[in-house]
């Protein structure tokens, strides 16, 4: 079983602050995906990173894939209350001809107005 550890598990910040969420593993992944999940709903894709060292930006969100493809980070600039939610990283590990995603435990972010 591939293990992804996310930190922190819980994060509560004031509107306008910056934050970084980390996703670490001892395994090398073919790609890593970040999702956001609302209560009672399915994970909604934010971004996929594929190449070691890759950086992708999505408005105020910046995603980075580690050089060795074992870790990733999500940085949010000037957080807003609408950013509140559960953020999940998921590593894709090719087995049997299809990627199987291994999910982290998630980071629950609360942005206080």
């Amino acid at each position, binding site marked *: 079983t591939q293990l992804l550890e996310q930190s922190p598990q819980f994060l509560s910040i004031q509107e306008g602050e910056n934050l970084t969420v980390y996703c670490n593993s001892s395994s090398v992944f*073919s*790609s890593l*995906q970040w*999702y956001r999940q609302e209560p*009672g*709903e*399915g*994970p*909604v*894709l934010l971004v*996929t990173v*594929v*190449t070691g060292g890759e950086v992708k930006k999505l408005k105020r969100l910046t995603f980075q894939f580690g050089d060795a493809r074992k870790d990733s980070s999500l940085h949010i600039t000037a957080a807003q209350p609408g950013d509140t939610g559960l953020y*999940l990283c*998921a590593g*894709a590990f*090719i*087995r*049997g*001809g*299809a*990627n*199987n*995603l*291994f*999910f*982290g*435990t*998630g980071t629950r972010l609360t942005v206080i107005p």
Partner: protein
Amino acid sequence: EPEVTQTPSHQVTQMGQEVILRCVPISNHLYFYWYRQILGQKVEFLVSFYNNEISEKSEIFDDQFSVERPDGSNFTLKIRSTKLEDSAMYFCASSEGYGLADTDTQYFGPGTRLTVL
């Protein structure tokens, strides 16, 4: 925008009964997956499916589980004899391809909440 759909949204069943969870993947996708999430826990992989056969399955996916693509659009997960511990959210996902490219991105459906009494 194309999306993965799942039915029903909520299924309540008695222990020992069979249930079938249904999914309609995104139309041009070739790889299909089932995941589950027990309340308060992380999303766990169950099975992947390609070209009408299982590609990979986890330890959770025992003989009580089966998957099928009965026609060109539906992808189903059957649990033959449900147990209390099968209560969870079940998510279907699909991807266009697999490998070192964005085409292996998996898109998730909204889930089916299964409650076993």
